[in-house]
């Protein structure tokens, strides 16, 4: 039987060129969803194929790759994706945010501030922020083209009318470069401020929905809100139980069946660094 031979980072060069063209378009129009011919990958749709295709298209042998899921390097899907890239490209990997040139992530932006020259690749399940208000693609395309975003504020209005506050806590919609409203992927709204004016290039890949979008470095990203109900991030009333950090996103760990809880940094690399600093 003839077994196929795999190219560096799995995708063939033609496919990589196609994806890079889409990325260039995305960078040229910040926040705009560029359709691309997503390829079948060896991991399921919904498990990061968009992010993997973006990373595969930009990866070079000199890169250092970090892969996280829920902020941690050791969660099962992060492990699986990192192994995939090591297997198909031999690229160097790291857990330290500051040492990575490419960071592929699901659902978090690292606590450690990113620097110029780094690329953040976010995995996106549903790229269309208007999707749950308007299911038809033909209509949402028009709404973006004509900047008809009234309906997004309608949703926020409804939240306030019903709950007294905006009830969106993740995948919080934001306006990019004062033009396109986008879905920053299911990062907690806690991470939205990190999108704004970042020195890093932020790329967003949705494999199943076949869209790529981007926020170029130092681009304005403003989360949607009302003047009298301004955007605010989550807070906890305690620091991380392990490292003592106060300004990071905390995971809730259930410790017993009597309601015992403890709160720990979601970003494992950040937490480890804080612990080292304390010593």
């Amino acid at each position, binding site marked *: 039987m003839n077994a196929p031979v795999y190219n560096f980072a799995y995708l063939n060069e033609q496919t990589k060129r196609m994806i890079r063209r889409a990325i260039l378009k995305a960078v040229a129009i910040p926040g705009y969803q560029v359709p691309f011919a997503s390829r079948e990958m060896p991991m399921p749709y919904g498990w990061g194929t968009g992010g993997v295709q973006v990373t595969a298209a930009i990866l070079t042998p000199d890169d250092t790759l970090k892969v996280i899921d829920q902020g941690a390097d050791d969660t099962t899907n992060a492990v699986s994706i990192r192994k995939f890239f090591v297997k198909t490209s031999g690229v160097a990997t790291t857990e330290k945010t500051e040492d990575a040139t490419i960071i592929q992530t699901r659902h978090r932006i690292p606590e450690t501030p990113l620097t110029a020259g780094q690329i953040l690749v976010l995995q996106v399940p549903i790229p269309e922020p208007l999707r749950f*208000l308007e299911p038809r693609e033909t209509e949402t395309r028009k709404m973006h083209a004509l900047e*008809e*975003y009234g309906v997004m504020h*309608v949703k926020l*209005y*409804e939240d306030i*009318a019903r709950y007294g506050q905006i009830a969106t806590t993740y995948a919080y919609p934001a306006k990019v470069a004062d033009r396109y409203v986008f879905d920053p992927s299911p990062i907690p709204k806690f991470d939205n401020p990190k999108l704004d004016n970042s020195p890093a290039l932020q790329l967003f890949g949705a494999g199943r929905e076949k869209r790529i979008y981007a926020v170029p470095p130092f681009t304005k990203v403003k989360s949607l809100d*009302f003047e*009298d109900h301004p955007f605010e991030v989550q807070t906890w009333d305690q620091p991380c139980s392990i490292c003592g950090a106060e300004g990071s996103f905390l995971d809730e760990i259930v410790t017993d069946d009597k309601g015992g809880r403890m709160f720990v940094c979601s970003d494992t690399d950040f937490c480890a660094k804080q612990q080292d600093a304390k010593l």
Partner: protein
Amino acid sequence: MKTLLSARDIGKSYGNRVGCENVSFDLHAGEVLAVVGESGSGKTTLLRCLSGHLQSSSGEVTYAMRDGRTVNLASLSEAERRLLMRTDWGFVHQDAREGLRMGVSGGANVGERLMAVGARHYGNIRAVSEDWLARVEISKDRMDDSPWAYSGGMRQRLQIARNLVTSPRLIFMDEPTGGLDVSVQARLLDLIRGLVRKFNLAAIVVTHDLAVARLLSSRMMVMQQGRVIETGLTDQVLEDPQAPYTQLLVSSVLQV
């Protein structure tokens, strides 16, 4: 009186079948024109052509924009047309579900147009919304309910408020009282008449019901099989119909 909308030789055909043809008229600011006919007369086709929902096969419509220009509607870009529909125009559908966002509250329905043109203060949006709902006699305590919980008459009133919040100058209405029972109809017509007067609205009202035409409009056009067969001041046409078909229509209305 300033001409607001001008239609010349509007026609729409589907292959061999004629939807409407050779329709011409002028509409002035503050004037209500009723388009009357049975189902199949072409009146709804005409309305949809005028409002841009349907592309006419022939003829042209010009409109005096808020900034003073008079434009041929066919020359507007899609963006301009959609903006016009959301600000200077209104469209009241026969079935309120087509004209409302059923999945959000009454208040949000009214506030949407404001948010679409940049309103960003929740408190103010809510206050304006409340105000308009009061004008259409929907009480404040129903404002956060979904339109699914409203009666048919309430939904129509909500539709009207949703359209009027941006102070449009022209409203298209397609059988606005269709499907509502008689007392509800009467109340709604009274409301519409009051609003039209108060805000000096121009309107084109399509209806098969002569009573609606009589109550709301100052001028009317009678359509049959796609053509306008009679036009004139409403009182005159109803009092002294000339065309045989109009005479038939008028005489067949039960005199209550």
